[in-house]
């Protein structure tokens, strides 16, 4: 076990190194064995219970073996719509084990995972860190056969995607699917233009420019970016930080993937501009584990910018403007997209949200003033510096300036990313994406809103349909109830479990919803769904629980007739327990039929 010792001792004796050590051990051993837990705890001066706590929190770490090779198959609703069931069956047949298990020979482990940011090319999976998009049952079988024959996942990638996906540092079969290039993110940008402009201004002037542009956070919450920078700058502290939230985990969003692939330098320029504005010398890019395949490419972009004097000491030739960026990886947890949970994770801990106040602008990364901004927000800020606030303000609507990058997937003929001006209606978007005739559109992912056709005139903007960028189109044949159940499964799986309403409430909501879906619901059950949903939203500690009942609540509002048709009218109470089904199960287990065919209560 010399190897284990080497892996652990490569890392500093600092609790903040925990996730880094775990990542290396997981990669080296396919899990984090007991011996490693003890060694890591001793090295980092943590208790073994704490180490197990971190391992078991993250989806891509495990205390038990996950196989010599591990398949993580996306379980999003879009994946299911695009044929996941058949692909999963093929994986299981070829591997000889079920999902959640490792094959008998230990060579292949199969596990489901939440949306991996490939909703425009489903079904997709991550195999030993390599993305396989557009899977079919045949391809799934071939992958498993290849792994068994000793061919690595990377060597099985043959056809590469477009753009930077073809670069030697990426070599991914992922396609960008850039369907509409807008003037902000995809406009012609001279590298360094934003930084040179910023360097000629005072930090206050930079903040003022961003404020005048009316830039609101692109992650979904819509907080004014300039104001956040101002709050952060005002805090007196030894150090300030810029943290870029590249943990887009909302099912159906993949627009940051495209920015990270094609526009990393624009993003890093935006981070440096933010650093200059708030007085930070270090930026942290928190990259979701699912996008680890882009890491070398991103490191290369950073190296290039250092060479060009756009990062490092004296950025853009301005003495005293020192700024650099490090990349930190997640390990599979949707909650880490919540900014305070992200900070906990970046500090090497379980990704559990913090109580606010205090907010990250005063007590953020390492408890120091930090501005946490979305990938798209930072890239957009760079463009605002380069082109000016007036230019930006001239696009979009009065309250929602500029453009938004949308990730469109589902039942449409042109899935992909669209940079559109705010104020676009859903009808217009469906027209662009080839999704005419849709039965429903989910805007903002599961935590957002399910819109029925009578709402297709609504606009994408902060005052109407605010979204971090996920738009999923559902065609006329889709079952709304199946979609809602998938979304609730997602929230139950991804809740951190810290607070009662989110931990227990989502399970109870899901159970109640299933009762209705099975045709055992009454009108009282619908009232319960509404009351309990409001309870979970009102009392949950962070944004996850404050939005997790939305799949149920927004579909009840958009599709009242569907729910009304599902419940038994006039019946005060219908038990959840199905006696007939239980008797059938009992008969099957006992291998005989009761003499009396009617059940006991009749």
């Amino acid at each position, binding site marked *: 076990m010399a190897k284990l010792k080497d892996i652990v001792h490569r890392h500093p004796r600092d609790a903040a190194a925990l996730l880094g050590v775990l990542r290396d051990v997981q990669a080296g051993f396919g899990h984090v064995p007991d011996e490693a837990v003890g060694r890591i705890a001793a090295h980092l*001066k943590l*208790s073994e219970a704490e180490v197990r706590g971190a391992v078991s929190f993250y989806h891509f770490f495990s205390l038990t073996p996950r196989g010599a090779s591990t398949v993580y198959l996306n379980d999003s609703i879009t994946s299911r719509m695009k044929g996941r069931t058949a692909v999963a069956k093929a994986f299981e047949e070829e591997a000889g084990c079920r999902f959640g298990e490792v094959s008998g020979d230990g060579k292949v482990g199969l596990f489901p995972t939440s949306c991996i940011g490939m909703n425009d090319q489903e079904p997709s999976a991550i195999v030993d860190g390599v993305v396989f998009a557009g899977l079919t049952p045949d391809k799934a079988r071939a992958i498993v056969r290849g792994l068994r024959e000793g061919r690595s996942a990377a060597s099985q990638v043959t056809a590469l995607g477009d753009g930077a996906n073809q670069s030697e540092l990426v070599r991914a079969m992922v396609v960008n699917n850039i369907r509409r290039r807008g003037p902000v993110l995809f406009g012609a940008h001279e590298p360094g233009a934003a930084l040179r402009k910023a360097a000629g201004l005072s930090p206050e002037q930079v903040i003022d420019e961003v404020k005048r542009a009316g830039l609101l956070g692109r992650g979904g919450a819509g907080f004014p970016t300039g104001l956040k920078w101002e709050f952060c700058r005002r805090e007196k502290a030894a150090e300030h930080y810029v943290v870029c939230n590249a943990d887009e985990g909302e099912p159906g969003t993949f627009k940051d993937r495209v920015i990270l692939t094609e526009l990393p330098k624009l993003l890093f320029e935006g981070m440096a501009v933010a650093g200059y504005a708030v007085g930070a010398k270090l930026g942290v890019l928190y990259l979701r584990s699912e996008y680890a395949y882009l890491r070398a490419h991103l490191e290369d972009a950073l190296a290039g910018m250092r060479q060009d004097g756009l990062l490092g000491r004296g950025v853009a030739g301005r003495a005293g403007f020192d700024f650099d960026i490090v990349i930190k990886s997640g390990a599979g947890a949707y909650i880490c997209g919540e900014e305070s949970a992200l900070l906990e994770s970046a500090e090497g801990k*379980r990704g559990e949200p913090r*109580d606010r106040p205090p907010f990250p602008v005063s007590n953020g990364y390492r408890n120091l003033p930090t501005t946490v901004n979305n990938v798209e927000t930072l890239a957009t800020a760079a463009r605002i510096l380069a082109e000016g606030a007036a230019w930006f303000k001239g696009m979009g609507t009065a309250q929602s300036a500029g453009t938004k990058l949308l990730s469109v997937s589902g039942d449409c003929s042109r899935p992909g990313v669209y940079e559109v001006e705010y104020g676009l209606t859903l009808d217009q978007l469906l027209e662009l994406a080839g999704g005419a005739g849709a039965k429903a559109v989910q805007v903002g992912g599961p935590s957002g809103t399910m819109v029925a056709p009578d709402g297709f005139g609504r606009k994408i903007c902060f005052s109407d349909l605010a979204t971090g960028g996920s738009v999923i189109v559902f065609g006329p044949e889709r079952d709304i109830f199946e979609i809602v159940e998938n979304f609730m499964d997602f929230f139950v799986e*991804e*809740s951190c*479990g810290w607070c*009662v309403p989110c*931990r227990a409430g989502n399970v109870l909501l899901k159970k109640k919803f299933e009762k209705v879906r099975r045709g055992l619901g009454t009108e009282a059950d619908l009232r319960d769904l509404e009351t309990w949903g409001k309870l979970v939203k*009102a009392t949950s500690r962070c944004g996850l629980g404050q939005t997790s009942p939305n799949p149920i609540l927004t579909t009840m509002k958009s599709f009242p007739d569907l729910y009304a048709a599902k419940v038994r009218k006039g019946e005060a109470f219908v038990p959840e327990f199905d006696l007939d089904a239980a008797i059938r199960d009992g008969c099957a287990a006992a291998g005989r039929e009761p003499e009396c065919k009617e059940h006991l209560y009749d």
Partner: protein
Amino acid sequence: MTEIRFTIDGQPCVAQPGQTIVEAAKANGVWIPVLCNYEGLKPVGSCRICTVRVAGRYMAACTQPVTEGMAVENTAADLEDMRRSLIEMLFVEGNHFCPACEKSGNCELQALAYRYQILVPRFPYLWPAKTLDARSPRLMLERNRCIQCLRCVRGVRAKDGRKIFAAVERGPRVAIEIDAKLAEGLSDAEARRAMDICPVGAIIRKEVGFAVPIGRRKFDHEPIGSDAAKGIGR
């Protein structure tokens, strides 16, 4: 330092700067129910039973600092029903059998249920399969009764500062784990503190019990929250 003026259900109150709503309420003789909160430990807002409403927004009173002019709603009927719901959720997501529990009468969850007059929870029981960890020489960790309040995680540490209790897993599977090696080093007094810190019967000392019979225990004398209303603290 200037005092902060605020109201709870319209009643004028004063707070010291930096006080949370729960702390300030107590100082003013007003009871706000708490469960995960414990004096001397950093509040974590995990049980949400102290949820109050300020200007239409819901917040945990144990983590929210009081601000000047704040108008806190504490006993509105709908708020109290939300709290009752949260207590009921704790009962259905665990396996709580009061009559057989050594903590009965000293249990804050049980006491809250009595105070909120809960007879039958509105939620279906989830009957989760939970495990008991009895490896430690002085303590038992009975997860059937655990409510994940994180008091033990915050309040019980080894001599070198390492955490003896830690949360593992996530979501509905989240559980408290005891570090068997570190727990071996616990003194009898520390084990007693661990049991006292636990609001329910999840941390139980071994080989001792029922020294005070059920019926003569803390909450058998008066309901939870009685002391706060007298302004003398818990």
